[in-house]
């Protein structure tokens, strides 16, 4: 993993009239339930520690109420924390002055919202240029600068339209163009595609992945959809009741879910489509059988392997070097749902 761009350390957020009065109790381990019943405060985030690597897509996943939207709003401090650190490039965002924070939001991190957050009184061109206009760029120049992003997200020709004249997918393209046009290194995406139809959503994921291939921004992506998380995430953190319960490599989470809650999540996904050969392969070489790329998923590998006489094949890396082997049994066991690793007694269903 590369160096961390954003380091979230011991972050707590408590909602209520006097959060500071109960923070010590939460740090000592008081549960969300107790806090609400005895002190009337709601625990939003509990001891969050996440390192977000530069130039990758980090997904924060959780169901509604898990605190994921609260967490992403701490990165640009749309929500004030109760305690903790949010270190971006060696600078603690949570300790910034008002002016420093405005600078940070203008140049360092831009955001895409679930409900788009477009300004209905501005045209597509004006919306896309909004970040630049806020930076102080003259309107005409800002529009020129953001034009290429309007075209990149596929909205060329719609510059003069108002958001209400566009479909949801197109509106979110405007939101994406607006976030990209400030050239910020960090892109915060709060359930950016959750409000869209499944087909449009896949479409937008492709747009994002295509852009990321050349831009290499540090993207923090919030979602409640595991398929989406697995599709675009380089790393995933799973949030439950305001706490991180597992984080790491997506393949690792599928193969080794740390508790039943995550098992519940994982059981509905199409394992054949998300698990890749590299995850399952055994060291050593198979004597015969096809050479398959390590990023190939099981769904594609299965027919090739079962057709092979040896019922096995070699796994090769990007350069064509053999790095391991894969057998039919391994694929079949990979497609089977795993048991829980930990001896956790709790059942969530």
């Amino acid at each position, binding site marked *: 993993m590369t160096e961390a761009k954003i380091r979230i350390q011991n972050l707590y957020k408590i909602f209520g009239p006097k959060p500071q009065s109960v923070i010590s109790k939460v740090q000592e381990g008081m549960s969300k339930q107790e806090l609400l019943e005895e002190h009337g405060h709601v625990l939003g985030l509990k001891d969050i520690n996440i390192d977000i690597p530069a130039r990758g897509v980090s997904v924060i996943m959780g169901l509604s109420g898990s605190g994921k939207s609260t967490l992403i709003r701490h990165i*640009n401090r*749309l929500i004030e924390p109760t305690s903790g650190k949010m270190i971006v490039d060696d600078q603690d965002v949570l300790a910034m002055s008002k002016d420093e*924070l*405005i*600078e*940070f*939001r*203008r*140049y360092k991190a*831009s*955001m895409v*919202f679930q*409900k*788009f*957050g*477009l*300004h*209905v*009184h501005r045209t597509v061109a004006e919306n896309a240029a*909004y*970040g630049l*206009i*806020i*930076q102080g760029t003259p309107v005409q120049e800002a529009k020129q600068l953001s034009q290429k992003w309007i075209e990149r997200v596929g909205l060329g020709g719609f510059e003069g*339209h*108002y*958001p*209400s*004249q566009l479909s949801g997918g197109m509106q979110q393209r405007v939101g994406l163009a*607006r976030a990209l046009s*400030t050239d910020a290194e960090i892109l*915060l995406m709060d359930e950016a595609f959750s409000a869209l139809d499944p087909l449009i959503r896949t479409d937008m994921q492709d747009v994002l992945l295509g852009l990321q291939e050349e831009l290499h921004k540090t993207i923090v992506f919030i979602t409640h959809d595991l398929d989406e998380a697995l599709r675009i995430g380089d790393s995933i953190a799973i949030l439950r009741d305001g706490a991180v319960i597992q984080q790491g490599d997506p393949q690792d989470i599928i193969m080794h879910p740390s508790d039943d809650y995550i098992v519940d999540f994982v059981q509905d996904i199409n394992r054949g489509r998300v698990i890749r050969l590299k995850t399952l392969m055994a060291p050593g070489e198979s004597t015969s059988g096809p050479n398959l790329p390590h990023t190939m998923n099981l769904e594609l590998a299965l027919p090739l392997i079962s057709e092979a006489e040896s019922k096995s094949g070699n796994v090769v890396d990007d350069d064509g070097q053999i790095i391991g082997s894969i057998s039919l049994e391994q694929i079949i066991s990979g497609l089977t749902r795993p048991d829980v690793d930990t001896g956790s007694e709790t059942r969530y269903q």
Partner: protein
Amino acid sequence: MDFFTKFPAMGRQGLRDLKKSIDAGFRDFSREFGESLENFFEPLLWFLVRLEKLLIATPWPIIILVLALLAWVGSRSVKIVIGTILSFLAIGYFGMWKDTMSTLAIISVSTIVCITAGIPLGILMARSDRAQSVVTPILDIMQTIPAFVYLIPVVMLLGIGKVPGLLAVCIYAIPPIVRLTNLGIRLVQKEALEAADAFGANYKQKLFGVQIPLALPNIFAGVNQTIMMALSMVVIASMIGVAGLGVPVLRSISNQYLALGLMNGLAIVALAIIFDRVSQQYGERLQKHRQGIKHD
């Protein structure tokens, strides 16, 4: 048992003294500051007098042309323009031209005063909950207290004339614009504002770039209401010496001139309808722009 049947009121003598001291106190206040207050309102008076003179001195066809043009610019509706022209022709034909021009002058000036004072006040209320909790009861008082009651101190301070009339009209007409500006800004979508925050907009950029543009339909409704309420004060204002359509109405009340009262009353109604339709159409047009009704 006397205690229960008769309210333990303040003594007659005490009450008289209390009222006397309040009256004397206010009289002293108006002697002390009446002059400087009059000087303060001097520019307003100058402007009002000039506007009234200009409206009366300008030949009537030009006035009708200008009004028709304004109605067109505001409403883009041929129907409203024709209505405006016919109304003013009728007003002139029935001999109410001069009074109508005077009324037009005071309504215009008081609307300008209400907007310039009311919109900033509404913005302040939207920004601070404390300001809202202080201003709201004052607005309630201004809207409900009988106009005659605040005419007393206004006349004591400034005497009889155009300025106290203007002040009385404004006291009654300013609450809607303040309230609706406040409401409009508070109703602006949270998402739009959060996006502005996320891109690093400062207070000024949020206010003029997001809040006011999105609150415009409500602010316009406020302007519209303010004009309507100003018009409804015309008769009361004429009691303290404001020229215009209210004067003949007042005369016809004391002399039981039905026709005179009716004609002038209908002239006020005509003004009200024209103002209302034009300003509403204008507000709606602004809205259509941003809602983008047509889907192409």
